[in-house]
């Protein structure tokens, strides 16, 4: 995608006529259009434009809860947006269409250029043009010695500067800076590599979430995971067979100053095995420090409290004795909401919904809250229900919400419970004891085989970019001739890719060095002349390049 390619496409702009153009010509025309720079530009803009809704609308893959909220807030608009993939912009067919076209355009432009570069790198530089004065950079000055000595000096100098050389009768032409095009091509090819890497991850990778209470463990199977998003070609048997137990979770918070209550550190102590029966490893999982098991990465992405309860039903049987994860509803004090479902209780199934307060306070008006996120004064407040929990009515139900439509409120005085305290339920329904609390951590589990290729592609793209911006491809021509007064040296220079500028400085340096090499006799040098002005410069470029092509 350079000016050169655009020019080629520009020449092909003439639309195929009626009679003499068959389908092949049409295809060629379409292909030229697609691989032209203008099309690439339009596609770049389109891709940028198409990304915007993805940042404005809530996205299914990022925040499903926000999407649900959007449905409630805009009941008329949401289904329309959903039809247009508005909540999954980056997976939308129209988004894919744009980037596939862009990458096709890129490939169609870059691959022929790579071929041309390979070809030109085996060819010597073109002959020196007859009139060096027409080049963008040129100078001439008399030299003391004979002409062939001056030419030899020029050849030595250019060779020492590692130019590729071609010599002829009274002239040398030199070319350098092929790495410019190499860098440019590397950048564009690396982008294709990046796309392939992303596709690899999308096909063979997976993402999962697991909420894990301290002291508990799980095996990496779809049923044990809370949320599981497999790649298109991933089946349950492809999951790496590790298992993880969280032995302990600690969280520390800033205890004083203006940032009191802000988290300072989280640490989840894990023990894990890569295969069943394998050796047990230990790892302190922290934010920014993921665990790597068998190529799968495990991250700490959240935490909270799971108060533990013991429920004895009306018949005196212990029907529940376990930690129940509560979900934090605010950051400052980490007050958390949760529900307890006891479907096996007799004579009635029981349900409780309530709040866990890590450092509880109660105002004189009776409202309660938590003033610090650490569990300094843990309390729970629970409201009890009896009746039908509707767990078996066929509808999936969240473990974090209670459907009380077929339940009755159990009448007892609501108050904060300290660990060890109980609520004795009236009417012989049983007893609930708040036995203590544990902490939970939520883990993100990701496997992405495209990750390393993506990293290498990105770094290659960066390297190519820097290379193409730093290196300029340039040609230097020297002609020597003898007239009546002695030897005259002509120097000309030309660059096609001088992105960052500075070729004129290099040319001046080169001229200076050449004069030094020729000795003081050339001291009476004429200042460089400006044969061409700004406007006719491109024309001069074309002349020189046309000459070089005409070899």
């Amino acid at each position, binding site marked *: 995608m350079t000016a050169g390619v655009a020019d080629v496409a520009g020449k092909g702009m003439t639309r195929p006529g009626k009679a003499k153009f068959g389908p092949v010509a049409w295809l060629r025309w379409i292909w030229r259009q697609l691989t032209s720079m203008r099309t690439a530009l339009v596609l770049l803009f389109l891709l940028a434009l198409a990304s*915007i809704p993805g940042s404005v609308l809530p996205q299914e893959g990022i925040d499903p809860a926000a999407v649900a909220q959007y449905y409630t807030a805009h009941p008329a608009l949401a289904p329309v947006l959903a039809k247009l993939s508005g909540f999954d912009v980056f997976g939308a067919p129209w988004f894919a269409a744009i980037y596939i076209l862009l990458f096709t355009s890129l490939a169609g432009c870059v691959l022929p250029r790579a071929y041309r570069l390979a070809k030109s790198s085996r060819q010597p530089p073109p002959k020196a043009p007859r009139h060096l004065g027409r080049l963008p*950079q040129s100078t001439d000055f008399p030299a003391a010695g004979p002409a062939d000595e001056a030419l030899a000096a020029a050849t030595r100098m250019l060779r020492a500067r590692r130019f590729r050389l071609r010599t002829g009768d009274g002239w040398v032409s030199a070319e350098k800076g092929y790495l410019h095009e190499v860098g440019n091509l590397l950048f564009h090819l690396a982008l294709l590599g990046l796309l392939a890497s992303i596709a690899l991850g999308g096909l063979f990778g997976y993402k999962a979430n697991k909420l894990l209470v301290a002291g508990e463990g799980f095996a990496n199977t779809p049923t044990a995971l809370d949320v599981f998003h497999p790649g298109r070609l991933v089946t349950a048997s492809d999951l790496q067979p590790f298992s993880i137990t969280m032995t302990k979770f600690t969280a520390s918070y800033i205890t004083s*100053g203006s940032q009191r209550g*802000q988290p300072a550190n989280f640490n989840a102590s894990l023990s894990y095995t890569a295969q069943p029966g394998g050796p047990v490893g230990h790892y302190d999982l*922290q934010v920014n420090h993921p665990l790597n098991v068998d190529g799968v990465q495990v991250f700490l992405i959240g935490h909270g409290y799971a108060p533990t309860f013991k429920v004895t039903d009306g018949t005196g049987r212990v029907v529940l004795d376990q930690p129940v994860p509560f979900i934090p509803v605010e950051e400052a004090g980490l007050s958390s909401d949760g529900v307890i479902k006891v479907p096996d209780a007799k004579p009635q199934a029981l349900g409780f919904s309530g709040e866990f307060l890590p450092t509880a306070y109660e105002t004189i008006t009776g409202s309660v809250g938590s003033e610090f996120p650490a569990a300094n004064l843990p309390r729970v407040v629970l409201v009890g229900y009896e009746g039908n929990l509707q767990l078996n009515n066929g509808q999936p139900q969240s473990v974090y919400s209670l459907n009380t439509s077929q339940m009755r409120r159990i009448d007892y005085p609501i108050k904060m419970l300290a660990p060890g305290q109980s609520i004795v339920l009236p009417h012989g329904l049983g007893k609930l004891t708040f036995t203590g609390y544990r902490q939970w951590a939520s883990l993100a589990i*990701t496997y992405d085989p495209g990750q390393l290729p993506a990293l290498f592609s990105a770094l290659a793209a960066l390297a190519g970019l820097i290379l193409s911006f730093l290196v300029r491809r340039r040609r230097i021509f020297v002609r020597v001739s003898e007239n009546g007064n002695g030897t005259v040296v002509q120097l000309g220079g030309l660059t096609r890719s001088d992105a960052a500028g500075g070729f004129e400085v290099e040319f001046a340096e080169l001229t200076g060095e050449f004069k030094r090499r020729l000795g003081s006799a050339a001291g009476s040098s004429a200042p460089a002349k400006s044969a061409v002005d700004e406007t006719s410069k491109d024309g001069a470029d074309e002349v020189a390049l046309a000459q070089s092509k005409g070899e």
Partner: protein
Amino acid sequence: MPSPALDQLSNAGLVSAILLYGFAMLAYALDFLYSRRKFESPATAAQAREKRPAAVLVGAGSGTADAGLAADEADRNFGADPADASAQLADLSAPPGGSGSDVVGLTKWPQGAWLRTAFVLTCLGLVVHIATITTRGLAEQRVPWGNMYEFLSAITCAAVLILTLASIKFRAYYMGLFVLLPVVVTLGIDEAVIYTPEGAVAPALNSYWIAIHVTGMIIAIGMYIFGAVTTVLYLLADRHERRVAAGQESGLAGIMAQLPGAAKLDQLAYRAILFAFPAWTFAVIAGAIWADHAWGRYWGWDPKETWSFITWLVYAAFLHARATAGWRGRRAAYVQLLGFACLMFNLVGVNLWISGLHSYANM
């Protein structure tokens, strides 16, 4: 432990830096007012060549006389500064009309009392600014770009650093006033409105990747700011030159006499983006690696990520546009400014209006 004394010192430092930048701006403006014109505008030169009567020249005095003066001054500078002789030689041996002759008539070090004062004040301001950021970092014992207040201070510092380097490297002393203006305004708002007391960062930000990712972003943004300011000047210069060429009143002749003409400004802006774009690419890659460490995916279309992608695309479009017939010049310049608008939206708009994983900017 964070140290309040160091933090206070750091605040005093930022106010001093703002004042120094302000005085530098004043000196740059005085240089524009009182120094002789530094550049011969291509348009006036063309008119001068046509030997039109001086009275017809629109607000530009006598072009011929000024051209003579400029050459005169260059000679004088050449003689006055032997240390620079070789650079001058290189400059003078380049063809004056060539695209790269941005150095002709300009010297490596600033000439004239006001310009020298302005540049020294800018450098002093920069030193104080860097010291301010350093002491804030020491006070907090972390990399001092953890919130919006610190981030704005850092990107303006980067912009001034780029200005200083470009002034020396590309003799772009004429950019001083125009780059310092947005810097001073931003720093003023930063200190007066957004100020955040020192403190620790959230665990999510507690990684050495903040030093890599955010530093890359800061340097890239500094260069993008320089590029955008130069491009605005380019558009003004281009408008001026076209108007003068058409024999119309432009109203900008006074300021344009201090600027090197549209073609040079365009090239300077392009250079800024040539450095900024790889820096931005690097910063985005570093951010992706960090995101992978912290959140378990290297790219997740978080709003900040999406907008840095959009910014990348638009600047990539600019680089391509500049190499495409029909897009060079003004259209490419508008594309670059569009990219800058996306960048600014990412810095400000995304923080204010869209919530996402990067929402710890504390605004």
